[in-house]
């Protein structure tokens, strides 16, 4: 008898996505779907989609979804969770959404210890609007609004959200993983599951940052984009569990 070792998660719809070739949103969606399946919470999950390429996340994930205004997903998630404390609420946000226009919302949701799970996709660029500079764009990287490369004298420095949020007492779980190779995807999978468990255990705010590739707007082949994540992004954004991980005191 054949044993199933791998299958499409139930929570992931069997549809073709609108994402570009080589985009890692597909992997991140699968990790979320797998975590929901593994924890058996599909019936009580409410996702909050943000503004950016993942605005249509609800077309791919088979659970209740609310679409939020740009940057406001943590506030919308707060409203949902406060009315339905037994539900499992997660946001899925990109770097422009979470670390630029929505900085106040994410910081205060974390500071309040809001019992929500945040999936933060960091690819260092605005994908949906066509490749503008993001708050997380690395110094020197060219974008359509930093055509000579990000110059810190003019455009400042990339924000390390996990480091920033892990200083807040309300943040119970803070971790960063990368999606550039299978070993790291497996680690990311554990972090995503942990971030949902943290909510189920009512410990507080949980966030997983996933370093991601945007081959289209980086003007790189998919394989080279993954290499850029590995070599450039990981160097600036250290991986691991900053707070609340296995073996940590929190």
């Amino acid at each position, binding site marked *: 008898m054949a044993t199933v070792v791998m299958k499409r998660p139930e929570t992931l719809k069997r549809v073709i996505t609108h994402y570009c070739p080589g985009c890692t949103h597909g992997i991140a969606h699968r990790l979320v779907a797998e975590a929901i399946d593994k924890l058996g919470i599909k019936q009580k999950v409410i996702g909050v989609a943000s503004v950016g390429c993942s605005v249509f996340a609800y077309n791919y994930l088979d659970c209740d979804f609310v*679409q939020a205004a740009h940057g406001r997903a943590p*506030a919308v998630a707060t409203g949902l969770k406060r009315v339905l404390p037994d539900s499992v609420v997660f946001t899925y946000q990109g770097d422009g959404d979470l670390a630029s226009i929505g900085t106040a*919302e994410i910081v205060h949701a974390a500071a309040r210890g809001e019992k929500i799970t945040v999936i933060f996709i960091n690819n260092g660029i605005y994908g949906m609007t066509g490749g503008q500079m993001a708050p997380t764009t690395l110094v020197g990287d060219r974008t359509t609004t930093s055509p000579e490369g990000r110059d810190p004298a003019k455009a400042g420095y990339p924000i390390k959200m996990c480091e920033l949020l892990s200083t807040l007492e309300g943040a119970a779980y803070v971790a960063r993983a990368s999606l550039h190779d299978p070993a790291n995807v497996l680690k990311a999978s554990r972090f995503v599951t942990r971030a949902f468990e943290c909510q189920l255990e009512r410990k507080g705010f949980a966030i997983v940052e996933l370093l991601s590739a945007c081959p289209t707007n980086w003007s790189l082949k998919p394989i080279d984009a993954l290499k850029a994540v590995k070599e450039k992004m990981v160097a600036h954004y250290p991986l691991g569990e900053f707070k609340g991980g296995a073996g940590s005191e929190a």
Partner: protein
Amino acid sequence: MGEKVLMKGNEAIAEAAIRAGCRYFFGYPITPQNEIPEYMARRLPQVGGVFLQAESEVAAINMVYGAAAAGGRVMTSSSGPGISLKQEGLSYMAGAELPCVVVNMVRAGPGLGGIQAAQSDYFQATKGGGHGDYRLVVYGPASIQEAVDLMAHAFDVADRYRTPVMLLGDGMLGQMMEPVEFPDYQVNIPVKDWITNGASGRPARVISSIFLKPEELDAHCWAMKRKYEEIAENETRVECLGLDDADFCLVAYGTTARICRSVMEKARESGLRVGLIRPISLWPFPTNTIREVASGNVKAFLTVEMSTGQMIEDVMLAVNGKKPVHFYGKTGGMVPAPRDILAKLRVVADDPEKGRMN
């Protein structure tokens, strides 16, 4: 009916909301409405509700959005600058067809302006302060009792039509004290078969205001337009006083309408036959009532506002040139004095054509 109690406007409105079944409040401090969040912070936990002070008005209205999507009877309150920040969320709520009640204790603007009573946010409230093809249902109570009575109605209208509703007061209504009576409320929240509360035993639901296909957004906006027409048909409210024999007609809402009522009485004592049209719903605006009065024997209209002239545009549209429309206003936190309105009325009576605005 209960006993009469002496209460501050803001607190009476908060209590009325709780009695109307409101269990969730998200807000941010701003004068002159702080007694609403303060009252909610005390009272909501006593009735099993949730009060949360948000990090900003932007966050507060988006929390309201989430709470409404979860099926909660939810409200927020603010004033001028804070209401400006809530416009993003109101547009999204209108687009996603989510119910909520927003109390706006108007202070004088623009900008930081002042903290005294004003009616200078009429345009923002009634003409769609946020982006897109939508309408906001707006009620302008003229007394604390009326504000209390309108709260339950506002929540019901919000739920019935799945739309945000605004209670447009002003700093004076919020800050003054009056005896009020709380009616025996029958909280009747309709079954909400559209909320996102986890897809248990049903297909997953999505609450969204995005329609990237023009044909779909066109259809959505026209469906909303039909809803707004239904609201205009069913929910327009207006009070008319002394119109049977009136030669001149005052038009005013809220606090200003109260002042105009005493002006009307004083004018009649001195032989000037004056009536008053008081719009209670500011959107939908009582256009038909004003149009009918303009077709009658009235010689001229005088619109009085605590602004430089905003509602007068709706009055002029309704009158449609049939009769002269005049304006008297004070703004910046100034309140029109009865004697000054009366003096203006006499000038209008002397020569209704002179100085007409239309």
